[in-house]
């Protein structure tokens, strides 16, 4: 058994720094690289792309990325694990095989994890009494059933472990938990037992630290942000994991950014609920047991993590169509910038009201003044300029379209000193709402396929 493995974080979301995974495989030693591509609404976007074109439905950026990194990955025997397969892991795999073909790389083994996509199973599950009601507010799925766009089970680390055992160098999954991408190689390399809850929790905590990329190594750091060096060349985090579950968080030498207990703490508290019960398909991790120690510059030791048995349920992430929105902005200049922007808002609302349009919500914010602070905003008198930002939401697309036509006329028919309208009419977009539910683990089975090309 190896005494330690280095797992690199390559991507914190779809759209993250394109050079980060390239730097991770080139700037120093790593054994594994995990890349998280899926946010809550990403699956619905991918599902829509697949409906239009059956060969799509995965994170397309993976293709040019692998053209760049595949030679390093193969030559250095780095194993890459990503959930960028979205709703079409097979098509993603085939795209990577095509890249290998183009680069004349032979014998590449790629594994896919399937079975998380239950969009076609919803009614069959319902007939079995698995209702998929909203786990947060208890609402019945039937209230939105015709509008459902995607439905995916969050699998954990073990299907990936199986793919690694079958020799996959690259593992492509659909909706796997972000933390499972990091935990899997630790289970595989160190032979951890599926009921060794403390170790599974340690790997899960490590996954939480890596899953947002640069947010653990000095990015978006609200502590002494000025003290973070060279963010232009930020090194994404790397976990040096050990068989006993202790981990050192670090980054490649000669990269920018900062790994300190403060930057790691900020990531640990990011998007968590009850810290004693961080629930994943693999275990329940207790974040109040995590011990951090600054061991050296850019080296933070993580130890002491305790865990509890996993629940009998998987979380299901569903999305459904819920109307349209549009947003528009106009910039008002001194003097009395805020007063003029407020007047413009008043005028537009009267015009929309005169048209008897049906909106679920009209929201006005003044960027530079109150969009973050709401009623806590201060110092309106000294503003040089303010951006009026108006958004509307409606199930009636025509109402949203009409709003888009009503914004620009304010330029010549509203308060003075207005600019910043170069983008043209606001474009209506579809609202994709999120529906979380639970499903018994016994109702779904992950499938693992490893093929060589």
């Amino acid at each position: 058994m190896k005494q330690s493995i280095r797992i690199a974080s390559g991507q914190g979301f779809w759209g993250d720094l394109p050079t980060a995974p390239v730097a991770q495989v080139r700037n120093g030693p790593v054994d594994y690289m995990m890349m998280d591509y899926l946010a809550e609404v990403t699956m619905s976007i991918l599902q829509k792309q697949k409906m239009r074109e059956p060969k799509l439905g995965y994170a397309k950026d993976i293709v040019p990325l692998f053209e760049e990194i595949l030679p390093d990955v193969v030559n250095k025997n780095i194993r890459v694990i990503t959930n960028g397969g979205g709703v079409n892991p097979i098509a993603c795999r085939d795209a990577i095989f095509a890249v290998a073909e183009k680069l004349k790389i032979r014998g590449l083994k790629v594994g896919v994890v399937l079975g998380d996509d239950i969009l076609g199973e919803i009614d069959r599950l319902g007939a079995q009494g698995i209702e998929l009601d909203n786990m947060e507010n208890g609402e019945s799925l039937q209230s939105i059933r015709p509008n459902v766009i995607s439905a995916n089970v969050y699998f954990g680390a073990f299907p990936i472990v199986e793919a690694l055992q079958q020799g996959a160098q690259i593992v492509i999954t659909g909706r796997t938990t972000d933390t499972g991408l990091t935990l899997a190689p630790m289970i595989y390399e160190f032979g951890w037992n599926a009921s060794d809850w403390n170790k599974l929790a340690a790997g899960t905590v490590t996954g939480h630290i890596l899953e947002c990329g640069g947010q653990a190594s000095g990015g978006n750091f609200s502590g002494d942000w000025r003290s973070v060096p060279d963010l232009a060349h930020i090194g994404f985090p790397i976990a040096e994991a050990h068989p006993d579950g202790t981990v050192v968080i670090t980054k490649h030498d000669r990269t920018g950014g900062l790994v300190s207990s403060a930057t790691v703490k900020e990531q640990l508290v990011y998007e968590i609920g009850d810290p004693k019960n961080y629930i994943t398909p693999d275990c329940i991790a207790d974040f109040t047991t995590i011990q951090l120690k600054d061991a050296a510059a850019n080296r933070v030791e993580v130890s002491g993590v305790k865990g509890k048995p996993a629940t009998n349920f998987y979380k299901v992430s569903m999305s459904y169509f819920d109307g349209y929105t549009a947003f528009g902005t106009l910039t008002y200049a001194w003097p009395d910038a805020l007063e003029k922007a407020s007047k413009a808002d008043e005028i537009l609302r009267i015009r929309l009201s005169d048209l008897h349009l049906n909106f679920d919500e009209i929201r006005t914010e003044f960027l530079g003044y109150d969009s973050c602070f709401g009623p806590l905003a201060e110092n309106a008198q000294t503003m040089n300029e303010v951006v009026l930002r108006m958004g509307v939401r409606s199930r009636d697309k025509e109402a949203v379209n009409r709003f888009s036509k009503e914004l620009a006329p304010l330029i010549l028919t509203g308060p003075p000193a207005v600019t910043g309208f170069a983008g043209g009419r606001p474009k209506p977009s579809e609202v994709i709402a999120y529906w979380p539910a639970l499903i018994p683990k016994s109702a779904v089975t992950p499938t693992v396929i490893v093929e060589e090309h």
Partner: protein
Amino acid sequence: MNIQLIQIAHARSGDKGDTGNVGVIARKPEYYPLLVKYLTPERVKQHFAGICIGRVERFELPNLGALNFLLHETLGGGGTLSLKNDAQGKALSSVMLRMKLEITETI
């Protein structure tokens, strides 16, 4: 003495649906008891009046010198439903750190 929370803490915030999460971390270990004492859920709810419509839950992480707050009904519906500029609650940390506190201790 009168202080502003940013003097003794840093923070990061994010979203889960319509709920905002704000993790508040003591800048020094000796500041953590101040956070526990003064950042009650009631005080935080009051501070976020007009922003957080629902309830405020607080969790303690003494091992990290940190508190985690869940601010329910805060993001205008959350996700793509929200018409807010800060639909993902990324700036809730700034709103939190702006809180003014009157403390009996000296720092």
